[in-house]
Structure formats: C-alpha cells, structure tokens
C-alpha cells in the first residue's frame, strides 16, 4: 500500500502572528515557516504504518508556493520516500487543494490519505473531508488511534462528547488529531539523505484544476484586545470580587 500525506507550509506555531498594517493579511516576510503541526502527526503515522509493514511507500505532497518544497524536505527528512510539489502562485483554498489532491490520488492510487485535521493558519478544517467527498471515499476525521488491517482501518475519533470508532474500507481518507502520536525529529544523516530524494513537480494546469479563489479576503485585522485586569491577594478576596464586583457567582 502507498500512503499519501498532504502537508502544508505555515507560520511556525511558536511565532507571534502580526497583522499587516494595510489589513491585507498577516505578515509573512522574514517569518519562520514550518510544517503545520497536524501534518507532522500525519507524516509520523504514515511512517509508523510503513515500519509496521502495512505500507511500502510514503509520499508527501504539498500545494503551495515554491518554498513549500522546504516543507516537503522536512517530511522526506522524517523518512518519507518521495515528494510531490504542486506549485501555485498563492496558497489555494481548501476546495482547490482537495481538487489538486484528487488528481494526485488518481495518479498514485494510495491505500490511504493521511492528513492533518486542520492547518493552523486558516483553521478551516475542510481539506480531508472535501478530498474524500470528491473521490467518493470514506472519511474518518479527528483520529486519535488508527488500527490497520488487510482491507480496513479502525479509527478512534475525538468528538465533542468523547470518543467514537469507525471502520473504513481501503482506500480511505483519515484526518489526524493531536493525540495520535508524537512526531519524530529528523536526524542529521536523514536531513542529508532527504536532499537527494525525488520531488516531482506539477502545476495546477498540469493537473487540469482551476484554483481560482471563491472567497475574497476584504480585510484582516487584530482581534479586539483584552485588557489585563487586577491582581488579588487572596482566594477570599477573589470570591468577594466575583460576588460583589463582577457579580458572576
């Protein structure tokens, strides 16, 4: 089985996001970028499936600007076998990404597509579900455990009320949640090896996909600031303030 792992290049999760003064978006110039943390979890799970003998090839794919190649190299350094870059002028919207990935799935015929449940930039939480819809495949979202057998996946899903399990056939799309695993760090020898691994390049036109945006971003602003309040000196004072000043208990 081949495993396809779509990955996204985003602002590093530890960097403080700043809105541009012209309100056109957030500042990306000279900002540290990294693989979306949920995508790292997906790559890790794919590698573990391969190491457990369930898969023979892990392919990382990214749709985005040319620098998304660095994100692919991160995945290759973790242990993925090869990469696919779909080079776009800007980051496509989730529906467009799903269409691009569908075209790749038709070429590669993976047994499972593993991807992060959301990217920490747009926080959309759509791409995996959309891809499954376009392919007519089963989807299991928010996975915290995946058990692989010959022709099915048993996926434990984190839902608002607790946990639930679904069995999905092969092929499936599975989106991963935080507690599925802890991604490995790439070792230096693997980082060196990753530089030699194959990365194929496509454009949306090569794949016959129109990625014109459907949403126009009119403006991006800072959220309303919340002022720091007061420090109290004791739990008794706190209870008093909550009762008599804030009147919330």
């Amino acid at each position, binding site marked *: 089985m081949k495993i396809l792992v779509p990955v996204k290049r985003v602002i590093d999760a530890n960097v403080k996001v700043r809105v541009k003064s012209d309100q056109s978006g957030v500042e990306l110039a000279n900002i540290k970028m990294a693989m979306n943390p949920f995508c790292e979890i997906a790559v890790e799970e794919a590698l573990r499936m391969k190491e457990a003998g369930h898969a023979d090839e892990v392919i990382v794919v990214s749709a985005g600007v040319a620098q998304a190649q660095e994100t692919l190299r991160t995945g290759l350094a973790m242990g993925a076998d090869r990469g696919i870059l779909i080079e776009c002028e800007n980051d496509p919207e989730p529906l467009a990404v799903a269409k691009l990935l569908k075209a790749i799935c038709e070429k590669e015929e993976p047994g499972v597509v593993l991807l992060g449940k959301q990217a920490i930039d*747009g926080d959309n939480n759509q791409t995996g579900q959309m891809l499954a819809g376009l392919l007519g495949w089963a989807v299991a979202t*928010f996975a915290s455990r995946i058990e692989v057998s010959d022709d099915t996946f048993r996926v434990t899903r984190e839902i608002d009320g607790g946990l*639930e399990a679904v069995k999905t056939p092969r092929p499936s799309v599975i989106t991963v949640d935080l507690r599925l695993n802890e991604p490995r760090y790439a070792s230096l020898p693997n980082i060196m090896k990753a530089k030699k691994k194959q990365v194929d390049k496509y454009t949306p036109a090569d794949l016959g996909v129109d990625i014109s*945006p459907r949403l126009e971003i009119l403006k991006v602003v800072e959220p309303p600031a919340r002022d720091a309040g007061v420090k109290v000196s004791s739990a008794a004072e706190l209870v008093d303030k909550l009762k008599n000043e804030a009147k919330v208990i």
Partner: protein
Amino acid sequence: MSILVIAEHDNQELKPATYNAIGAALQIGLSAGEGAEVDVLVVGSDCKPVAEAAAAADGIRTVRVADSAEYANFIAENVAPLIVNLVSEYTHILVPATTFGKNILPRAAALLDVQQISDISSVVSDDTFIRPIYAGNAMATVKSSDSVKLVTVRTTSFEASADSGGSAAIEALDATGDAGLSVFDGAEISSSERPELTSADIVISGGRGMQSGENFAMLERIADKLGAAVGASRAAVDAGYVPNDYQVGQTGKVVAPNLYIAVGISGAIQHLAGMKDSKVIVAINKDDEAPIFQVADYGLVADLFEAIPEFEAALDND
C-alpha cells in the same frame, strides 16, 4: 432568502449549539434587511423527539426530518448526499462548528463545488462574514462568490434563539441510503451531571499545574458548588489527567461563559483561542509571568494547592 440550519443532536435531544446556529441564521436575515425563512434539518434515526423540539424553537418555518437507520451515527458519507439534495431550495446552509458540523459540511461543500466558510464569528452581510484565523490572533472578513453559502458557526459568538414559542410544521424527507463506506464501531461518550462545557455559564479549567487526574477532584467540588462545567488545557489532556472532551482551545472546544476560571494554566495562545471571549476570566497560577494573566480580569498569584481549598472555603463561608 431561505436558510437551512442542520440540527446537532444525539437522536434524543436537540443540542444547544443548534440554537446558536439558528441565531446566526436570523442575523444573516437581518443583515439583508428582509429577514430570512429559516428551516431546520433533523437528520438521524428514531429522532422524533428532536424534530419536535426543533419545531418548538422560535422563528422556524419548517422542520425537515430525515429519519432512517443509515443516519443513526451521522456518518458523513450518508449525511452529505441529503444536504446536496436540499441545497437548491436555500441561499445558505448553516451548521454549528462542532465536531459534528466540521465532519459533515465540507463533504457536502465539495460535492456542490462550494468553498465552505468555516467558523464564522460575525455576520457582515448575506455574503460576507468575519472569522478567526491563526487561532484567533487575526480576524478575517471574507466575501463568498459561491451561489449558495455553506457556513459553520462559532456557537459562542451568536446568541441562542429561543427554544420555545414556535410551532413549525414537521415534514418528512426521503432517506438517501447507506453509502456502504464507514461503519460505526462503538463510542465512549462521557456522561456527567454537570452542564455541557460549551453552554455552561461558568467553566473551571485545570492545566498541567494540576499535576494529576486525581487533583481535578478539587476543581470538580468547586464546579458542583457553582453549577459549573470542568475543562482542561491541552497539556492536561495530553498528560492523561482528563479525557479529550475536556479540552478547551484552538483545536478543542471554544467556550465563552460568564465566568472562566483557569487553574494552573499558563495560557498558551492555543488555549486562549478557546476561551478569551469569556465575559470574566480568572487566573490562578503560581507563576506571575504566565501569559494567562494578560487576559485575566482577576489574577491570583498563588500555589493552586493552597489557593483552591481556600477558594472553596470562601465559597462555603458565604
């Protein structure tokens, strides 16, 4: 303008998030100055009580019910075709941005070739919405050019509509059949006598500072005195102190109670994203540099293992 709100429920009870989504639908109607006809879709199995509850909600034209075995567990592959069948009658389809809504709506959007708008927190007009991005560190105003808008609603950002006062007609829909793909294989649903995290008036949450699951009993006692729900930071869930459904934050639940008490939580941006719209925020933490104090209305710099028993005692003394 006609809007379909997809109800969230467990085949027995209508979940409160549905009323917030209806509230958002009413706002979309108001934004256009003409009001909106709002229908509710109840998709489930043996879900008649849910349909009846939805029919009693204020401001609903029709409750449309698809009651069939294949919908029992809200499998996206089974639910999405039903949404697709109904879409031509509506200008907007709304669902709460919960794990239920996030799971089903993007699939329907893809089948309809529509770019969904996720997690709206405000309505500007019938095609323009504000939504948080980057864990709420920026707010984007987006305008959709799609002919129908598929939207998930940040429930804490919209007033719930009234759950009574209406008497909508209930209409049965034909089922769309089992896609034969995902098969439900059991659930572990947490049960609690306490209010639901996302709709509680008061939430008390613990972080890594709690040091163990057993210590959450201290918070539970206070929760029971205040009628509060208990939540947690990601760190506390990752450490195994409490189950995943306690998690408040960017990737967990978004809450906006009247009072949020953060105990032993440092206040990573991912946690703040899930609670900073709370009306009053209290932080109890021994590190006076903890970022949580930057958003707290009342901060108490103290060892929680001393402060929490004192807090409980002060509640009792009154």
